[in-house]
């Protein structure tokens, strides 16, 4: 595999941001098939169209997913990418690594594949980019036997779960997102590796409403940490902020002069429910009216902390636009205890109740968010055994097309028109 002329891609080697073209060229010195990656991408830049064929079904025995098959539509020109399958490898919670482990993984990957990777895919997996079909089983053997690492998910199944780094290095995390993500990933290996669902299904775990894994937008079940009691206030630290001794937002806005910190303007007046005020030099919060938006805590991390009665809000149904339009997850359980002490029992029961129902009624390629839309939120809640509460809606319905059940209406739905006509002659 020879070098190709890549005048268009070469332009992407200038500028300050790390250049993927430079990286590819460096890897090509070791793995010549990378020249063909560059060649085909250059051709796509010129033709303005992809040169990968449609689809591709490859895999390893025992699993129905984990590997995304890909073939070049110009294999004669670029034999190095004739097969260019992508392997999804399960990542550790929060993506903490040792160099030893990464080196070992890269040794395996350079032995069986192109050496090119994506760290990481949007769902969280380690992505190994580009190998041939005949390498898949040997690669899988080495991954599992030498590295003790498994594939991630693809297809109509539970995809690889992901979490924010949680209590490992964040003072706001309201539950152990890493433990929860890890435990549930282990528990649901079968659902990850062998597609059994109407469509894909994702979990994501965030420690607080800042939602650093974007669970609310990118998972079918979003578990977002929160607390039930009061925000913990350190009044002495509040004074330090006011005095300008502590930088607001941990110094996040230090790149520009925004003037002296003004607690009234930057915290009290920006509170969405206006439940804060200053009184005698002390910051007061009416916690009953607080929606736990995180703003005040984000601005003054050294003075304000989440409460101690912590758990998570569970939202369901986020998805990208196809087919019925994009959706964020909608709140189903305002507060759930999330604890390794009971092996995440409540959350597991919740998830399995969704699956039991969705696997039965979900149409082919229908995300759970669409199934919810189709049957309606009230039906979904009753299936889940959740009592409707005002927190389930942003606002009540404005149309009057209200369904009632037979048993909710005195006399039911069975009526005799003859009887009606005795009082109202036609």
């Amino acid at each position: 595999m020879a070098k190709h002329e890549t005048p268009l891609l070469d332009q992407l080697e200038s500028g300050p941001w790390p250049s993927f073209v430079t990286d590819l060229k460096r890897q090509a010195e070791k793995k010549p098939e990378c020249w063909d990656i560059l060649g085909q991408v250059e051709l796509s830049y010129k033709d303005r169209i992809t040169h990968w064929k449609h689809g591709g079904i490859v895999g390893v025995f025992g699993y129905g997913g984990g590997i995304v098959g890909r073939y070049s539509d110009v294999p004669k020109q670029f034999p190095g990418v004739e097969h260019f399958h992508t392997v999804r490898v399960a990542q550790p919670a929060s993506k903490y690594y040792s160099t030893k482990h990464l080196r070992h993984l890269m040794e395996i990957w350079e032995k069986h594949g192109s050496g090119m990777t994506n760290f990481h895919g949007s769902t969280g997996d380690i992505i190994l980019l580009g190998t041939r079909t005949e390498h898949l089983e040997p690669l899988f053997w080495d991954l599992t036997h030498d590295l003790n690492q498994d594939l991630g998910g693809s297809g109509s199944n539970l995809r690889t779960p992901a979490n924010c780094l949680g209590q490992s290095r964040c003072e706001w995390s309201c539950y152990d997102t890493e433990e929860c993500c890890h435990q549930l990933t282990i528990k649901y290996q079968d659902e990850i590796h062998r597609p059994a669902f109407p469509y894909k299904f994702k979990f994501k775990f965030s420690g607080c409403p800042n939602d650093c894994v974007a669970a609310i937008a990118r998972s079918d079940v979003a578990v977002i940490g929160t607390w039930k009691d009061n925000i913990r206030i350190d009044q002495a630290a509040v004074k330090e902020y006011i005095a300008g001794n502590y930088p607001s937002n941990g110094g996040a806005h230090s790149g520009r002069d925004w003037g002296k910190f003004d607690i009234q303007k930057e915290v009290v007046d920006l509170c969405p429910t206006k439940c804060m005020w200053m009184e005698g030099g002390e910051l007061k919060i009416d916690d009953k009216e607080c929606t736990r938006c995180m703003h005040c805590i984000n601005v003054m991390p050294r003075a304000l902390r989440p409460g101690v009665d912590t758990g998570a809000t569970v939202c369901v149904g986020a998805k990208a636009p196809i087919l019925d339009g994009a959706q964020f997850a909608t709140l189903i359980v305002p507060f759930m205890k999330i604890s390794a002490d009971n092996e995440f029992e409540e959350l597991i029961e919740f998830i399995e109740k969704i699956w039991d129902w969705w696997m039965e009624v979900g149409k082919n390629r229908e995300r759970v968010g669409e199934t919810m839309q189709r049957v309606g939120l009230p039906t979904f809640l009753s299936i889940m055994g959740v009592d409707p509460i005002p927190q389930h809606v942003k606002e009540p319905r404005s149309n009057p097309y209200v369904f009632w059940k037979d048993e909710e209406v005195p006399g039911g739905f069975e009526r005799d028109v003859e009887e009606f006509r005795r009082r109202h002659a036609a």
Partner: protein
Amino acid sequence: MPTLEHNGSTFQVDEDGFLLKGMEEWNDNWVDYVKSSEGISELTDEHTKVIDALQEYYKKNGIAPMVRILSKTTGFPLKRIYELFPSGPGKGACKMAGLPKPTGCV
């Protein structure tokens, strides 16, 4: 596209080894051929039951059945289907039955 020969039958397949002309070219030799590439040592009545179910559903509906419908019609839980077809119902059973290649976000 590659053409391959097995026991005197010729088949046109795509790069993933799915029959390009589907059930039109499908016969016992195809089943015998796929058996070797999909990790199946011996073909049993249970394999045949899955293949028949897939073909029947496809002829009637023009699509492959969802996994749980396949489980329901054959009475085999997913675990059993993977025991029969190590590559799973898509890559294993559908290929052997001569159904078109599964598509979408796989």
